[in-house]
Structure formats: C-alpha cells, structure tokens
C-alpha cells in the first residue's frame, strides 16, 4: 500500500515538475544551451562508448578527446580524418567558437594548400578542384558555426578573412567584417577592415570613401597607414577636390 502511495506521489510531483522542466528547456534553447541532438546519427558517428559518455553529461570531454585525435591527424596530414573528426567535435560542442574556427582553418587554409601542392596529382585542374572543395568545407564550418553562435563576432571575422584571402570576394568580406563589427565584444579593427574591403569593390568607391573618411575623422588612432593609403587611392579615383582631401603625411 505504501509503495503504491509513494508511486502516486512521485507521479503527482512529476506532473508538477514537468512545466518547470519544460520552461527550463525553452530557456536552454533560447540561450543556445543543449544544442546537441542525441540521435542515431550521432550514435553512429561516435561509437557506443563515446555516445554513452556524451549522454551521461561528458560530451565536452568526448569532444576534447576527438579534438586531440584531430590534432594528431593534422600532424600526419590525414585530411579526410581531420574533416571527419572535426565534424564530430563541432556536433558535440556547437557552442565552442574555437572548434569551428580550427575546423575551418584546417580545411580552408591547411588542407587546401596541401591539395594544391599534392605531388601525387599531376593534373592542375584536379588540384584546383580539390583546393576549391576544401575552401567550401571551411566556409561550411564557419556558416554552421555562425548559425549556432549568432551573437559572437569571431566566426563572422574568420568568414570575412576566408572571403578576402581565399575567394578574393571583397564585397562579401566587407559584409562579414561589418557584421562582426556590429556585435558586442568585436575588436575595433573590424570596422576598418570592412571599409578597406569595400574600397576594392567596383562601383562602391563612394560608400567606401565615406566610411574611411568617417573613421579618419573619428580619432587619431584610426589614422593607420593602410587607412590613409586607401583614402588617398579613393580620393584620386573619385576626383575629390583638393581642399577636401586629407593632408599628406609628413615626410
């Protein structure tokens, strides 16, 4: 009788606690906690032990162990393994900027260069194709990282650098530097970099000039050599009157 009574109390209390738990789960989702879906797909990726460990509240440790394996794979230049392991790591720890950043760096900067210098592949076209595929993998990591961490400026900045250095797409680079600059905690240079990149875009010189000029007027600290060089270039290109131009630097 007492057992039944205890069970009944447990169920009644369960019904009371249920709204509290659901409320907490909603807050977790809003604040991007619990971003990991424990499903069969993850189980296949991690293996039995890893999955059990991740389920028991040790997913950060599992992610670290896989990250160290990825680090070893990188030292051995096993790029497919690096990619596979970083996919697991970022699935387990989607809130870690470091893991998304490292994954993108390995793909877009390291693996792409290795593919381009691959002596086993004599055909240039195929090497270029492989290089572009690694750029795309790096971009994919960064885009998914941003989706999971929309409030953090670091990955926007890395994506901007990827567009600038790998795709030579200054317009997109400028856009992502600007997005990074708009977020709290972003370094000040993101605003400058966004304006620099815009200054390379055909047809947007006037906008770039206005932004660079605004930065120039804002503070002495912003008057860095690159900013002055780009401003002077735009002044010449746009035919800005002499009296509106910034002064030449002292010799």
């Amino acid at each position, binding site marked *: 009788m007492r057992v039944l009574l205890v069970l009944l109390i447990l169920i009644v209390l369960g019904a009371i606690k*249920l709204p509290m738990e659901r409320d907490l*789960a909603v807050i977790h989702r809003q604040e991007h906690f619990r971003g990991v879906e424990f499903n069969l797909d993850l189980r296949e990726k991690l293996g039995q032990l890893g999955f059990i460990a991740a389920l028991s509240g040790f997913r950060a440790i599992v992610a670290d162990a896989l990250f160290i394996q990825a680090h070893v794979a990188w030292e051995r230049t096993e790029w497919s393994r690096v990619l596979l392991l970083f996919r697991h790591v970022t699935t387990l720890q989607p809130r870690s900027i470091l893991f998304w950043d490292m994954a993108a760096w390995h793909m877009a900067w390291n693996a792409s260069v290795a593919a381009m210098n691959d002596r086993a592949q004599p055909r240039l076209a195929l090497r270029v194709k492989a290089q572009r595929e690694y750029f795309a993998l790096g971009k994919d990591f960064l885009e998914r990282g941003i989706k999971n961490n929309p409030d953090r400026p670091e990955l926007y900045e890395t994506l901007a650098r990827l567009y600038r250095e790998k795709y030579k797409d200054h317009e997109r680079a400028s856009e992502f530097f600007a997005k990074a600059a708009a977020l709290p905690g972003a370094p000040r240079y993101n605003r400058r970099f966004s304006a620099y990149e815009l200054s390379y875009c055909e047809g947007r010189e006037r906008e770039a000039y206005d932004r660079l000029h605004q930065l120039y007027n804002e503070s002495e600290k912003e008057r860095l050599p690159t900013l002055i060089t780009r401003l002077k270039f735009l002044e010449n290109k746009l035919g800005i009157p002499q009296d509106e131009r910034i002064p030449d630097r002292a010799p």
Partner: protein
Amino acid sequence: MAQLTFQQEFQILKDVSLGAMSIFTSLLAIVATARLIPQDIEDRTVYTILAKPVPRFEYLLGKIAGVLLLLAISTLIMSSVFLAVLYTREQTVLHETVRQMSKAPREQVDDALRAVRASALNIDLFPGITVIYLKACLLAALTLFVSTFATTSIFTIVVMTFIYFIGHLQATAREYWLQGHSSGWITHGFLAVVALIFPDLQAFNLVDDIVAGAAISLGLFAKTAVLGIFYTTIYTLLAVFVFYGKEL
C-alpha cells in the same frame, strides 16, 4: 610536433577539470549516501539512535545534511585546486605574451592580453560549479530515497547508476511524449513514466556550454537552482515518508 594554442589548452583544462568534478561529486553523492542507512542497520547503530527521543525524520535529515556538507567541502576543495591551476597557467601565459610582444604597440598587447584572460578564468565558471554541486545534492537525496527501501548498498548503487543514465535521457523522453511523436500506447505510457518519475539531469549539464564560451544568465541560473532545490527537498521528504513506514 605542433603544440596546442593557449585557447585550446585552457579549453581542454577546463573541460577535463569540470568533467572530473562532475563525475566525482556525483559518484561521491551516490556511494556515500548509499552506505548510510544499510550500514547503520548492519552495525545496529540505528537502533541505538532511534531508541532515544530522536524522531526518524531528524535522523534522516541529519544524514542528508552530513552528505550535503561533505559534498560542499569536496566541491570547494576541487574548485580551489582547479581555479588555482587555471590562475597559475593564465599568469604564465600572460607573462609569456607580454615578453613575446614587448616591441608591439600597446593596443595590440592589450588585445592579446584580453584574449588570454577571456579564454582562461571567467566569472561564468562559478555558477557552473554551483550547478555541479546542486546536481550532486539531487543525486544524494535520490540515493537516500532509494536506500530507504533497498536492503543492501550495492542494490542502491546499481539502481542509482541506472537512474543516472535514465535521468540524462529524461528530457528526450519527455519531449517525445509531450509532442506525441511516440507510436502505440505502450511506448507512450513508457515515455510518460520516464518523464514523470525521473529527474531531468541534462538540465544540470551547463558547464559544457559555459566552457565553450556561453554566458549563463541570472534567470537561467536561478531556475536551475530552484529545480535542484525542489528535487532535493522532494526526494528527502519521500525518503522520510518511506523510512517512517520501514520496519526496523
């Protein structure tokens, strides 16, 4: 051989340390509590105590208070060691950074130092550690409840191990049950039982995301703390209820 960067090193240090704190406090909560009542019955200490004018609830409250104090002390010691190691390593990295960037402009040095500080010790670690303690308290109270009807401490530990795993899956079961994804009344009933009877232990796993850089809001921390205290109180009261009916 390539070395880990300071961000990677700090992240791994924090993940492993907080993970170890979580597992050890949980283990301590289960093992220490599971032995309390069966050992007192085996040693016949319980008869000596209850023969005096000590109500059963006071006896149990004393037991759980002792375990909670033990957990608090162990969490405090582990946190102190962890924070001391993290602080020492942070200082070393800061000195190295200052030395390496001695010729760089002041602004760049400040940026670098800020990056080191942001990736090492941060204020969000403290609510994370508190939540680890709350989870251990919950497990201790639940173990006490199980041990009031268990006959041996081994049985209690085995049952608690299962509850630990089920508790981490409870949220998934709850969502499937409430959203009506389950097919068939047996599955539906099973999910309902899991969702209603077991605690949601995933709600207390905030440190993974805190180490990754997520900031814990005051509202989230307060609600998690309330849930932890609610569970601990309920399971302790249930333990008292069962213990009152137990024939000694």
